[in-house]
């Protein structure tokens, strides 16, 4: 522990990023034991500090970047204003609302930070921009290139996914690297699809369990970006390639790219959630979602948690609901427990 007090988090972050295996292991260990981690975190961007807020509740602002890679852009729709007729703007506005309602109604949570954080989104970001991201303080959505991807606001679960990153950052602060990064991605997918299921009032059996349904342009061989029910089957296309997600630890992908495959190996915990939700039946947010939410808030869960540590947190969280066996069985089916 001696070194931890002298190595500033920024240096440790550099070791995590650029060090060799031993330096990286040391830095991650040190960061995990460093009490300042929750504020410094592994991310440079943190939620904006908030003073005393006069009001809480749903506060949305949608900005238009006008095709530039600039944020936030021009304010085009604020809370309470009617639709503006631009689908990207209005889909983003509705998606933020759907996400806020899921968190407030089913988890008693006031926005991403449980302190009424205003929700900010930028649309029409960049030219042919094939992505959506969370920058630590707001969501950003591209229009897609029209050839492979359509606009990213089309799928409400993608809006929910980006917002859920904000909640993960505020709670477990799962480090965006390797298994903890894949957990960060998976939790974002879980809450993303819960937003959709909640908006449509679908049960676990009725849900399609797809992330990014309808985002692929016509002619692309696939149905979505990811499938939580059948990871690895969302697309298979000449240009896009084949969905690389594994559904079991036996097929875990070791890679240096994508921060250690955070968008690839998330298929494993995704499948564990889908198995839990379908085994329990009914609305997924009621029990499976509650278990995952409580695990995310478990003070024993470290930012560097691996799959087994998160699985253990979900089993602990399942106790009060009397569904420990179902949850443990789901993780066993994907080879984690």
């Amino acid at each position, binding site marked *: 522990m001696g070194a931890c007090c002298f190595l500033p988090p920024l240096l440790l*972050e*550099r070791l*995590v*990023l*650029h060090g060799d295996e031993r330096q990286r292991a040391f830095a991650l260990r040190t960061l995990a034991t460093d009490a300042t981690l929750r504020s410094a975190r*592994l*991310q*440079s*961007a943190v939620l904006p500090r908030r003073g005393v807020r006069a009001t809480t509740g749903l506060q949305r602002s949608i900005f238009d970047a006008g095709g530039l890679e600039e944020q936030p852009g021009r304010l085009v729709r604020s809370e309470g204003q009617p639709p503006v007729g631009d689908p990207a703007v209005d889909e983003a506005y509705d998606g933020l609302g759907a996400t806020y309602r899921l968190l407030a109604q089913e988890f008693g949570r006031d926005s991403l930070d449980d302190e009424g954080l205003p929700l900010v989104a930028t649309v029409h970001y960049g*030219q*042919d921009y*094939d*992505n*959506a*991201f*969370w*920058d*630590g303080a707001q969501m950003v959505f591209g229009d897609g*290139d029209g*050839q*492979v*991807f359509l606009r*990213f606001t089309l799928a409400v679960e*993608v809006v929910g*996914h*980006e917002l859920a*990153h904000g909640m993960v*950052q505020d709670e477990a602060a799962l*480090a*965006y*690297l390797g298994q903890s*990064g894949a957990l*960060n991605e998976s939790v974002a997918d879980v809450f993303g699809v819960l937003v959709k299921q909640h908006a449509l009032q679908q049960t676990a059996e009725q849900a399609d369990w797809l992330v*990014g349904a309808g*985002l692929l342009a016509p*002619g692309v061989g696939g149905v979505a*970006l*990811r499938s939580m029910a059948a990871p690895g089957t969302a*697309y298979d296309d*000449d*240009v*896009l*390639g084949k969905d*690389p997600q594994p559904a079991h630890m036996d097929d875990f992908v070791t890679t240096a*790219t*994508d*921060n250690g495959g*955070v*968008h*690839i190996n998330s298929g494993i915990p995704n499948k564990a959630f889908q198995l839990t939700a379908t085994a329990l039946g009914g609305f997924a947010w009621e029990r499976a979602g509650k278990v995952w939410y409580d695990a995310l808030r478990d003070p024993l869960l470290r930012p560097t948690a691996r799959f087994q540590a998160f699985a253990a947190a979900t089993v602990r969280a399942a106790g009060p609901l009397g569904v420990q066996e179902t949850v443990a069985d789901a993780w066993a089916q994907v080879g984690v427990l």
Partner: protein
Amino acid sequence: MSDWQRIELERTGGLAGAPVRVHVAPDDADAARFSALLDGVDLGHLQGVDEPAGAVVDGFSYSLTIEAGGAVHDLRCGERALPEAVRPLVRALVRRGRARPGR
């Protein structure tokens, strides 16, 4: 710049997580266009600004390799750190990597 031997781009990450990999050689039909895009790039000072992992959650990661004049130049960085001078080249490479034959 016409004195180059290869240009390679790998873009990973992003919400979709579907990588783009492109390789362009000097005998490419569009070689002249890529040469023009290389003109604005100072290969001797090709580097991104360091940023921590996950500074942009769901952001893209880039790995660009340019072999020119007998030297190999590498750039690895997140999307925010991508130098302004290489962005037009990177955009053209991604468009190439995502082009559907016959469209």
